[in-house]
């Protein structure tokens, strides 16, 4: 069973083309719109976002369910805790 079938995505954020710190700031805002347990899908092209999103989730206590490298972008699934 895939991550998304267990955790349906309720909000999408496309941060492609944006540089640090915008993907993080926009992710923070998007998570603010979610209820506990809901999942956000973030797309970003900033190479630094891989480490930054992971660190952001750790600091804020949200769960990074998966990180994928798609064609030309990184995809993150984050569950609000």
């Amino acid at each position, binding site marked *: 069973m895939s991550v998304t079938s267990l955790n349906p995505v309720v909000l999408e954020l496309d941060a492609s083309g*944006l*540089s640090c*710190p*915008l993907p*993080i700031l926009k992710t923070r805002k998007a998570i603010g719109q979610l209820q506990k347990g809901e999942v956000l899908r973030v797309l970003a*092209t900033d190479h630094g976002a891989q480490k930054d999103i992971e660190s952001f989730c750790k*600091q*804020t206590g949200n769960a990074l369910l998966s990180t994928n490298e798609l064609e030309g972008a990184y995809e993150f699934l984050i569950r609000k805790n």
Partner: protein
Amino acid sequence: MAISEVKNELPNADPQSAEMNDWFEKKFEEEMKKREDAHTPSMAIIATRGTLDWAYPPFILGSTGAALGWDVTIFYTFYGLLLLQKDLNLKVSPLGNPAMPMKMPMGPDWLQKMNIPMPNVFPSIMPGFETTATALMKKTFQNKGVATIEELRELSLEADVKFVACQMTVDVFGFDHSDFIDDVSYAGAASFLPVAQKADVTLFT
């Protein structure tokens, strides 16, 4: 922790025993972990520069700190006050930044790939030298998807970053509070230092 609680959990322990020692170590770890989890990290930043390039560090770090859930205060002093103006008209001067590795943000591919040391692009006595350098930097940042200073300042305020301006330098440079955005409070060194003392992170930019 009350003595009675210790007696309840370890009724017959000798205070010098290994058992007591282990119990204390475990309890201490638990208490420290509780304290750490309940602690909201905080950051105090001093912003002293008013050029377009140096406007970025305080706003990037401030807004990101707030996004991580930290309490952030930025204290603006000297040329940092320019970052609080209602109408931002920040410029960058390559004169003081001889290492600035800018590339041309426009034109043919071969030109965009070339590294052009900024002071050599235009003779520095040429009128409009600074304006040109500023325009080139803004264009480059825009091409790379970097936020504008206006955007980052707005995002910082939205995330509850506290802005404090140094009243002494406001007076020295002849600014009026009406020159600045509304979300600023005014204070001096004696207000900043206690904030910095309690902060987990302090930065001078």
